[in-house]
């Protein structure tokens, strides 16, 4: 590990923590419908939209109405993406004359982008037309993030309100999240990306002559000489900005943020990572402000930061240490080389920025990658996998991370209440059996889907057919795919050929269930909390603003994750690590 690397990581987290307060305060103003500097431009647009769509912005919804509105919106936008993909061959802006997307892949991709997962079983530049990328996919980057943001705000209102039946209006929250938060940030970020060299055009792909023709051996064993190269391009910057800000992660190109047209410079790399954490970090401040306890927001942010540090330290250490099988090779960092395990990493980013990117993208539910997680050392690859398995609540996805973390807070407060023998209270709200039932439903559905589908995949020929590696590494590849899908992360461990009927349908089901089956109990808790009275705090009330609370919350997240997933992790990356040290490669 180099000092230079640690300095970059320190600058990154400092920037996240500094930006959390202004970002959070702005979102509080947006969702509490206070005046903001964007109102003169955006309020007329908002009013026009409500008039056209027939939405009454003053009409409040209870938790069930809020949930049904979210489901209707998701179903309609999912259908649009499915149709656009299937018909892209007859729709405009198909400069490469690409055929319609096959039905199973269109299903998988439509579910993927609707659920903020952005799992990609396809190579975008050879599969999706510009219209599909813009109308079918980039729009979902806004909508799915705005829906997540709306749901988190609804949960926070559930905590903040007293004896209320409603949580807000889904359509208003969706609109304000898109207009005030995601669109302005995306426009500015896209401009910055263009200034750094990210492509933004609607041109056909260019074909250029190679300076040095290459001899290539095909899968049929025949050797041919390649003299030209196709340069894929398109409306990249506009999709790239929201891909990171909305913690979506679906790349315009197959190589994602490792591609120089998506992520050309160290500055864009830094800003991409920063934009992943920007809104989730801000939401902790929004939480504190909206519930009237800013210190509680900081305590939650502290728990997230501790877990983030544990992750980035482990990946950086494991990758900088390198592969023990290359003990005789110089793997030390120097002026001439990045050192450590550089397989699957961009030389221009090196170990530190690859380790940090991998940690950030899986702490949040982003899934963009600037290095290939499949090529990490077993312990390095264990961290991204574990981050997703913990529920992506370390900063987390836009909105989804916050409401996931709040479910853990409910359970932490409940356990603290059990330990001291008092009725658990969370910010003056008594936590009762229904709240805990729904919280446990939320926590149990997640491993049930991942472990159930991974087990079926590992026992069926269709599931095993896609594997590139055997042994514990093969298990990790299948486990990672279902974990990434269910966690709505979307990053791939690679090494798994997932564009098959089996994986397209089962991963689609995992993404759907991992999003919507978890949102419903979360909203049920929010609705139940909103209806409760506020009980004044007494000496026996467990404070949720102290370092003790941060330690309890962090410990609970680690223990729940470890108890649930340690057995399967011990058969995958942990076993691979031990066997690697004994000289076995997979």
């Amino acid at each position, binding site marked *: 590990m180099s000092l230079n690397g640690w300095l970059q990581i320190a600058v990154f987290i400092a920037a996240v923590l500094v930006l959390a307060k202004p970002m959070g305060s702005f979102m509080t103003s947006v969702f509490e419908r206070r005046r903001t500097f964007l109102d003169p431009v955006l309020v007329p647009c908002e009013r026009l939209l409500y008039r056209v769509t027939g939405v009454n912005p003053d009409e409040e919804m209870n938790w069930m109405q809020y949930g049904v509105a979210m489901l209707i919106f998701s*179903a309609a936008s999912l259908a649009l993406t*499915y149709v656009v993909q299937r018909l892209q061959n007859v729709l405009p802006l198909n400069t490469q004359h690409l055929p319609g997307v096959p*039905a*199973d892949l269109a299903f998988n991709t439509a*579910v993927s982008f609707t659920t903020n997962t952005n799992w990609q079983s396809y190579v975008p530049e050879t599969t999706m037309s510009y219209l599909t990328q813009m109308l079918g996919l980039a729009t979902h980057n806004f909508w799915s993030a705005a829906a997540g943001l709306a749901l988190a705000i609804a949960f926070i209102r559930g905590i903040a309100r007293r004896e209320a039946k409603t949580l807000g209006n889904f359509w208003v929250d969706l609109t304000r999240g898109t207009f005030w938060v995601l669109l302005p940030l995306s426009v500015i970020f896209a401009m910055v990306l263009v200034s750094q060299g990210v492509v933004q055009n609607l041109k056909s792909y260019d074909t250029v002559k190679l300076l040095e023709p290459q001899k290539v051996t095909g899968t049929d064993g025949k050797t041919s000489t390649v003299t030209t190269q196709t340069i894929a391009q398109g409306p990249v910057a506009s999709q790239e900005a929201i891909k990171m800000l909305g913690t979506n992660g679906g790349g315009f190109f197959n190589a994602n943020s490792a591609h120089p047209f998506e992520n050309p410079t160290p500055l864009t790399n830094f800003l991409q990572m920063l934009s992943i954490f920007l809104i989730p970090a801000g939401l902790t401040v929004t939480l504190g402000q909206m519930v009237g306890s800013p210190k509680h927001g900081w305590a939650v942010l502290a728990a997230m930061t501790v877990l983030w540090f544990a992750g980035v330290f482990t990946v950086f250490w494991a990758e900088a240490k390198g592969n023990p099988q290359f003990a005789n090779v110089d793997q030390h960092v120097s002026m001439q080389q990045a050192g450590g395990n550089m397989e699957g990493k961009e030389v221009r980013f090196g170990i530190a920025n690859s380790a940090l990117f991998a940690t950030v993208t899986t702490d949040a539910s982003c899934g963009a990658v600037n290095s290939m997680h499949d090529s990490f050392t077993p312990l390095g690859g264990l961290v991204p996998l574990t981050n997703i398995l913990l529920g992506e609540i370390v900063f987390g996805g836009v909105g989804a991370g916050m409401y996931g973390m709040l479910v853990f807070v409910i359970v932490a407060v409940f356990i603290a209440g059990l330990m001291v023998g008092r009725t658990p209270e969370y910010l003056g709200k008594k936590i009762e059996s229904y709240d805990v039932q*729904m919280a446990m439903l939320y926590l149990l559905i997640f491993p049930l889907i991942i472990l159930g589908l991974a087990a079926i995949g590992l026992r069926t020929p269709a599931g095993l057919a896609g594997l590139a590696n055997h042994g514990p590494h093969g298990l990790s590849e299948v486990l990672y795919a279902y974990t990434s899908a269910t966690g709505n992360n979307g990053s791939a461990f690679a090494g798994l050929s997932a564009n098959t009927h089996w994986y397209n349908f089962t991963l689609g*089901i995992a993404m759907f269930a991992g999003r919507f089956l978890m949102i*419903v109990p979360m909203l049920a808790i929010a609705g139940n909390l909103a209806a409760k009275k506020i009980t004044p705090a007494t000496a026996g009330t467990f404070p949720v603003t102290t370092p003790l609370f941060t330690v309890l919350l962090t410990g609970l997240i680690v223990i729940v994750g470890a108890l649930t997933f340690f057995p399967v992790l011990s058969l995958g990356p942990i076993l691979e690590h031990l066997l690697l040290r004994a000289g076995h490669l997979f």
Partner: protein
Amino acid sequence: MLDVLAIALLFLLFGACLLYLRGCASLKGGR
């Protein structure tokens, strides 16, 4: 054929989700 399967699956998933929502709500009402 796969179109029919994909669309049927989507209807099934969203339908199941609505039932699940009602189930979660009735758990509260039933106590």
